[in-house]
């Protein structure tokens, strides 16, 4: 077996050194009747070539995003990632290292995390950020739990513009906690819900996504003000981090916790994971923040260095009193994010965002011109919602047959709500060309004809 350095001679010599006659003596504590000799039902070892052939065939059955005009978003976005990023994250020293428990020999990871935290704090307009969460959805659930700790209240008010699967993750964890409740507003495709009316003195936090699941841009300021009047926190969520290059940061608008998906920068679509949750908050709440945090310090010679810090919040120290159970997070995805962000800089992110927005504007105009199609959004970033005069699922399937992946039927995520049956969320990024946009409009026209 190519991955195993021991030879049979080694094994025999080592067993002799240990003083055993056979390997099974080391497994003596496994009850005799529970030991297995072999895994008969599973195939034997394969060569590298065989494995590559088998999995390549599986991959070839899938229609990769880059193979056709592609406009699917809804929480994961196809962007161009510079080749440099993927090369660097495959450096052995980053790829095959682990959580920096021994800071003297993991300064590379630690400094990169410190830079990552700085970038995330700056983008979101917040004081501090952690060293990453699993993804945007689980990060949102953690944000709600954190708000409950800070406010000592347990009611979360959730906007109907929050990604439905994010909402389900929050509802799932809330259902576990005695006394916790969730007030989830109905789907809000037009971005017109009155969330202010739902905030009262029992409210722990208000969870609002902007751009929303439907691409609507939400004014967070009045929500922050009302939340603060009732000693509640505003949790601002995003699923498209590139939007922060063009939209006012949630921090400036008064958010207390900003959480979102960082996949768009540095990370491939990967069919949903691994992704990277970004999590930022105000300085005063830092000790209630979940997850790992990297901080600056000095070594015994006075040289600047970095360490994991504030670990008394964490599970390995606090056990059942920890702020979260998270241990392994998204280190390498955070590194990919940080490298791509480092190549873009603030100027580059803004430019990238403008290109995205421009393509989305062109796409909205092209699709809106198709007979019977209505664009719901007056304002949007790179994603918006259209209403088609047919069942959205059928339209998307028909478009796929015509070689266009045209978005996500809202009913795929909200099957029980009849009023969304004709809605499709559509995203455009810098990867779309004018030809892609023309092809989509033409295909949509044909499908609806």
């Amino acid at each position, binding site marked *: *077996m190519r991955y195993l*350095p021991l030879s049979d001679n080694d094994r025999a010599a*080592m067993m002799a050194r*240990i003083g055993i006659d056979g390997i099974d003596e080391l497994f003596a504590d496994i009850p005799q009747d529970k*030991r*297995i000799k*072999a895994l008969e039902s*599973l195939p034997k070892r*394969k060569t590298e070539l065989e494995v590559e052939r088998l999995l*390549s065939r599986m*991959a070839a059955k*899938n229609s*990769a995003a880059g193979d056709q005009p592609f406009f699917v978003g809804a*929480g994961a976005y196809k962007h161009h990632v*510079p080749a*440099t990023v993927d090369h*660097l994250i495959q450096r*052995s*020293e*980053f790829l095959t290292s682990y959580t920096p428990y*021994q800071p*003297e020999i993991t*300064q*590379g990871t630690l400094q*990169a995390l410190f*830079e990552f935290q700085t970038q995330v704090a700056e983008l979101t307009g917040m004081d501090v950020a952690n060293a990453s969460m699993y993804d945007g959805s689980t990060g949102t659930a953690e944000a709600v739990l954190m708000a409950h700790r800070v406010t000592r209240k347990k009611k979360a008010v959730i906007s109907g513009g929050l990604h439905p699967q994010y909402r*389900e993750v929050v509802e799932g964890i809330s259902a*576990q906690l*005695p006394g916790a409740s969730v007030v989830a507003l109905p789907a809000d495709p037009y971005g017109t819900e009155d969330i202010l009316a739902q905030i009262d003195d029992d409210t722990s936090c208000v969870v609002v996504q902007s751009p929303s699941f439907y691409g609507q*841009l939400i004014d967070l300021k009045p929500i922050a003000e009302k939340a603060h009047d009732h000693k509640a926190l505003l949790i601002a969520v995003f699923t498209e981090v590139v939007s*922060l290059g063009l939209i006012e*940061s949630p921090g400036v608008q008064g958010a207390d916790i900003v959480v979102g998906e960082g996949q768009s920068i540095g990370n*491939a679509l*990967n*069919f*949903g*994971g*691994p992704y990277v949750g970004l999590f930022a908050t105000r300085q005063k709440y830092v000790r209630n923040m979940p997850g*790992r945090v990297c901080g600056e*310090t000095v070594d*015994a*010679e006075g040289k600047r260095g970095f360490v994991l810090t504030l670990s*008394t919040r964490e*599970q390995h120290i606090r056990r*059942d*009193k920890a702020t979260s*159970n998270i241990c*392994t997070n998204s*280190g390498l995805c955070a590194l990919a994010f940080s490298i791509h962000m*480092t*190549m873009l*800089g*603030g100027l580059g992110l*803004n430019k990238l965002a403008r290109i995205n927005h421009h393509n989305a*504007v062109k796409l909205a105009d092209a699709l809106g011109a198709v007979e019977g199609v209505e664009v719901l959004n*007056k304002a949007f*970033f790179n994603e918006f919602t259209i209403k088609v005069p047919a069942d959205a699922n059928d339209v998307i399937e028909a478009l*796929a047959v015509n070689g266009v*992946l045209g978005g996500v039927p809202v009913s795929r995520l909200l*099957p029980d709500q009849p009023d969304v049956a004709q809605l499709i969320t559509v995203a455009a990024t810098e990867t779309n060309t004018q030809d892609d946009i023309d092809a989509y409009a033409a295909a949509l026209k044909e499908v609806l004809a």
Partner: protein
Amino acid sequence: MSMNTQGRPTAPAGAALGEQRKTFTGNRALDMEEPLLFELGHWNICGVDLDEPEEFSPRLGNHARQSEIALPAFTEPETMRHYVRLSRMNYAIDAGLYPLGSCTMKHNPRLNEKLARLAGFADLHPLQPVSTASGAYELIDMLAEWLMQLTGTTAVAMSPKAGAHGEQCGMMAIKQALLARGEQRSIVLVPESAHGTNPATAALIGYKVVAVPARDDGTVDPQAVADKLKEHEGEVAALMLTNPNTCGLFEPQVVEIANLIHEAGAYFYCDGANFNAIVGKARPGDLGIDAMHINLHKTFSTPHGGGGPGSGPVVLSQRLAPFAPLPFIRRTDEGLELVENTSQLVEGEQPFGRMTAFHGQMGMFVRALAYMLSHGSDGLQQASEDAVLNANYVRVGLQDLMSLPYGEKPCMHEVLFDDTFLKDTGVTTLDFAKAMIDEGYHPMTMYFPLVVHGAMLIEPTESESRASLDLFVATLRDLVISAKEGDTSRFEGAPFHAPRRRLDETAAARKPLLKWTAPTAG
């Protein structure tokens, strides 16, 4: 000094001046210092070539960003240099033995990296039409099949993002199963030797944690479990047990413990962090477990990445299978069917909800499956045997000099020492670990598990050759002898040769500096 005809010295001279000589840059040849990107970067450039979009009228309403984004950029060569220099300050499996107990730092095959990057997997959107991603569902199902076969279980929840998330998933399934039979229990039993994530997870989902003491041999006494079950009769929802446990021992009475738990109407959660010891040797399902997460980044070698991403699928017993979260793949006569919302459920399926958006860590699934296919059933079994053999080889190489808290008996894939052997030497476990750094090793897991004093948990994995283990053992022996002979200079203040000396963690926590801030003028 000898010279060639151009006067170029051909033999080294002045060797004695080496060690402490200061350099102008602070660099020491290949060991280079690297400032923060905020100190080096350009504030007015973009390092990616992007065309300026033509004039258009934005449709941002009144939401356009007014605040600046004060982040610098690097050009491509500067980016390479910054991160390559940072990388060189990291220890890594590819560079040396990484015996971090309970973390299973094994070789990460590059074939797996290559396959995970195939466009058909990497450039695939989780919500693109199901009909355009059949190969992805096929892959997830095949991996699920391997996991079920290896563990002797009948269902697996694939979506959890890492081990702790898997624990949460398994425990939520247990809670749902209890609810389904009209019960609300409040307590979860957790042995003292458990990973911190176990009690943290139980508490996270609203359970009270009751600790089960370890007995003198490092394992869990069924009687202690029985006592706790009796003391909290009808209130115990589950036991969370790591097996093999964090002392590196297989729980010999695991079946009895499982029976006790089941007789009390509770469920048996197993932390699968140490599954690498028993793949192909025993199936957790046969031992009576109801749920166990599998850290694909440990047992099945997906790269640890400096702290993730992980992946934590949870295998489930028949009793818990109906409660597996959305989404899941249903096998039907017509083939595979993705079930991603409640409207698609059929009789008997009662998912407790959803752990995360989308389908889980697909990128890790590809890598783990490639690893399994490469090994095959025979190779996986061999890997576990080698991992256990290597740990025991280290044990016998050190047991006369270091102290085994539970006596000289075989361990599983990791061996636990305590700090008794350092008594009266003035050297602590921390000092010992830092001295290992100077010798070119990543230290073992230290001060965990909490059940022994000054714990050192060594997990060499099956990736180490005999020669590598021999040198490791010889090095540790040399260190122990130094400590015992009173040569504390090797330990106090170590490491001496790492990119940094010991770092002040107390100062970092007291006044946290969690991001770079621009120096103020003056």
